[in-house]
Structures are given as C-alpha cells and as structure tokens.
C-alpha cells in the first residue's frame, strides 16, 4: 500500500474529494498547513507599511490506498487541484507498510 500526501490550494478541497470519491477512493485525512516555495508568500498592509507573510495557507491531504490505485488517484488529484498558477502544490507518494482499522482491528487493504 501507499500513502499519498498532497499539498493543495485550500479552495480545491471539495473538487479533489469529489474526484477521489468518483474513482472509488472513499477515505482521506486533511490538515491545514502553510506552505513556502516558488510562490514567495504575500504582503499585508499595516499602518502605512507592508509586511511579508512568507507562508501561505494550503491544505495537506493524506490518502492511504492500495499500490494499484496510486496512479489513478494521483491523476485525479492533479486534475482536480490544478489551477495553473504557482502554488498549486505537490503530490508526494510514500510506501505504507501496514494499515489497521481501529474500530474492527482489520489490517491491510481491507482496513482502507
């Protein structure tokens, strides 16, 4: 199994969730993060001066799924998350050794 970690623009969340459920990926975990990269942050005004906010709000999506599904999932996320602007984000894939469903104790793919 694999763990997909995707950094996306906050407002793309609903689109991405729909894209994933559309291909049958029914579970995911989201966290609010702040990102820094090519997109260098933005400036806010405060009493006659501008201040740079280096880190911009992003969302981090974590999706565990069978290795076989990774390709489709990555494609689906990319399509749904893309706006074409700098800051659209990244998709990381990590190897996932095991999964357990707390409620039932099931392990492995059946736990997803």
């Amino acid at each position, binding site marked *: 199994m694999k763990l997909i970690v995707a950094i996306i623009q906050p407002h793309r969340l609903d689109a991405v969730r729909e894209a994933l459920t559309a291909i049958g990926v029914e579970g995911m975990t989201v966290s609010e993060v702040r990102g820094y990269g090519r997109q260098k942050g933005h400036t*806010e*005004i*405060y*009493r*006659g*001066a*501008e*201040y740079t*906010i280096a880190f911009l709000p992003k969302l981090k999506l974590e999706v565990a799924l069978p290795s076989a599904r990774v390709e489709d999932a990555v494609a689906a996320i990319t399509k749904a998350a893309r706006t074409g602007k700098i800051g659209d984000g990244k998709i990381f894939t990590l190897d996932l050794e095991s999964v357990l469903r707390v409620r039932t104790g099931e392990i492995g793919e059946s736990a997803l």
Partner: protein
Amino acid sequence: MTAKQANQGATTVINGSDTAWLMTATVLVLLMTLPALALFYGGLVQAKNILSVLVQCCAVACVASVLWFVCGYSLTYSGNGAWLGDLSAVFLQNGNRTMLHAGTNIPESVFVMFQMTFAVITPALIIGAYVERIRFSAVLWISALWLLIVYVPVAHWVWGGGWLAKAGVIDFAGGIVVHVTAGVSALVIAWTLKPRVDFPKSVRPPHAPWMVMVGASLLWVGWFGFNAGSALAANADAGMAMLTTHLSAATATLVWMAIEWMSFGKPSLVGAVTGTIAGLATITPAAGNVGPLGAVVLGAAASLVCYGAVHVVKRVMVVDDALDVLGVHGVGGALGTLALPFLAGLGVGGAALHHPVGTQFLVQAEGVVAVAVWSAVATFVITKVTGMIVGLRVDRDHEIQGLDFSSHGETGYHSGR
C-alpha cells in the same frame, strides 16, 4: 470640562438631567478602557501576547481607580493652587453623599466618578507603547507613579483651576490632559525600554484585525461620553460636542482609507479604524468649540497628520512605540489643541474662545509645549526608577515565548481538544 465651562446657572440643588447624563457618560468612558481599549490593543499584538495586554488594561484601570480615591482626586480638584491641589479630599472624605460639586449641578460623587474614568484611561493608553516585552510589575509601578506625577498635576493645571486654566487654555475633553501626556510619555517609555526582539523585522500584522475593529467601534461610542460628558450637563453644548465628535471620526476614517487606497491600492480595516481613533483624539480638545464644519476639517487633518506621524516615529526615529500611541493619540491631541482657535469660528455652531484667535493660539501652544516637556522629563525619571526597583523587561526567552504564558500562566486560544 472645567467646572467653569459648565457653570451655567449653577444652583444649590442637584439637577436630575445633568446627573442622569453624567452617570451615563461615566459608564461610556469606563467602557472605553474596559473592554474597548483592551480589545483595540489586544487585537494589534501577536496571539501569544493578547492576554497580557488585557491583564495590563485591567490592572492599570484598578490601580488608577484606587489611587484616584486615595489622593489623586484631591490633588487634582481641591484647592486653588497654581501647580497642585490640596489634600482636603483624600480618601474622598470631603463631604456627605448629597454634596453638590461646586460650579456644577451634579453630586460630588458623580463628578469624582466621571473624572476617575479619565484618570483610568489615560495611563491605559500608554500600554500601547510597551506591550509584548515589559515586565508586569513594571507596568504597575510606572502607571502608579505616572498617574500621580504626570496626570494629576497636568489635570490640575488645565481642569483643576491651575496655571493653564488661569491662562485661559482651552482643552475641552483632554487633548492636552489625556492625549499629549499619554502620547509623549509613551514615546519616552518605548525609547527607554528599547524595541522588541528583532524590531522592526519581527513586526507582524495584527493577530486579530476583527478585534481591533470591535475595540475601535466601542471606543467611538464611548467617546460620546468622553466628549459630550465633558460639558458636565445635558445641554446644547453636550449635543454639539457629540455631533462634532462623530463628524470628525467619520471624516478621519474615510481620509485614512483614501490615503492607504492611493498608497497600496487597498484600504485596510486596521487602517480605517486607526483613522477613526485619530479623528476622535484630534477633536477631543476642540469638541466644545468648533461647529460641524470645523469638525469635518479637523477630522480630515487628523488622518493626514497622524498617518505621517506614525511613519516618522516607526521608520524615521525607529522607536518601537508598538501601537503608535504618540503618532495617533499624542499628535492628534496636540493637533486639535493647536487648530481649534482657527476652526472655532468656521461656520455656525462654534463657541467663543477665551482670547482673540492669535492670543488663544499662543496660549494653546504654551499648554502643549509645557505639558509635553513635563511629561517627557517626569516619565523618563519614572521609567528609570522603575527599572531600578523591579526591572523593565521580561527576559528574552519569555518575550519570545510570549507574555501570556510567561507572565500570566495562560494561553490565549485553546482549541479545546
């Protein structure tokens, strides 16, 4: 504001309407400190220091109240000294409960209480200068000493029948007594205290602009008690003071937004309400003398001048007057004090000066300069002395960690999970 100003048909019986209005005004002016100013300042700091600002506002308010009761009121409003009042009203033991305050139609208790709210907010305004780095015990020492050594004498000079009152200075609701004293002293403390770690690099935008706006709005409505209450009566002077106060605030808000819009392409919320406060501070000394037209002119001038002043202090002088007490309050108060002789006659609705325009201006200038100098010198000494007694700053780690936890053992926002 002085008994004289209100002395229209003084009687020996209490006037119920004046009493009703002054009690209302008292409520409004206390509201300005708790919670208005606390929210205004609290929203401007970083999240890790929000509670410390609120504690400071509470503590300063309480210390000032108790000192006012002990001897502050007496030294300000008793006797006829040119420099200081006397001790005939210490612990407010100067008369029975039905006593009338001389020169007004309201009970002594109401006059004491109304004036107390001014003694409360003035040292609280200074908090804006030293937030995010000061030791809490230093806040108490500085505020206590400052109230007795700076506020009390100056209030006596201007409102207690002292030398500036005799000279005919006009300071309707505290341009000099409240804003110049607080503003100048703020600069001196900020300068003595040194900037926050990594200032100005470390400066962050306000952690809660919404809170700043709520505080500013409550300050706005509270200011009606501050200015219209200073007529010490429920009469046409009070009504006009309220009208001019509002027009100045509204105009100043729009002008500050316009300046930001032109400079950055966007008007900000914090900018808009900073303009509001500038407009309110500036009209304060003049609210009893200008008419509607003068108020609008003064409001526009307030934002233009204070916007520049903030820039000068922060970026030219590079003094970390963290929340711009001098730039917004001090400069605004001085501006209104100096401009009122020229604006009192603009259009209808104004009130007579004590001297011809030119002379009045010189008297006003004399008042501003004398009070500024006294505030600066005395505050410098107070701050140095406090530094020796308890130390001025928290240590670097605590400053970085934030005063909420390091000085008060609390956290501002708990997700609750």
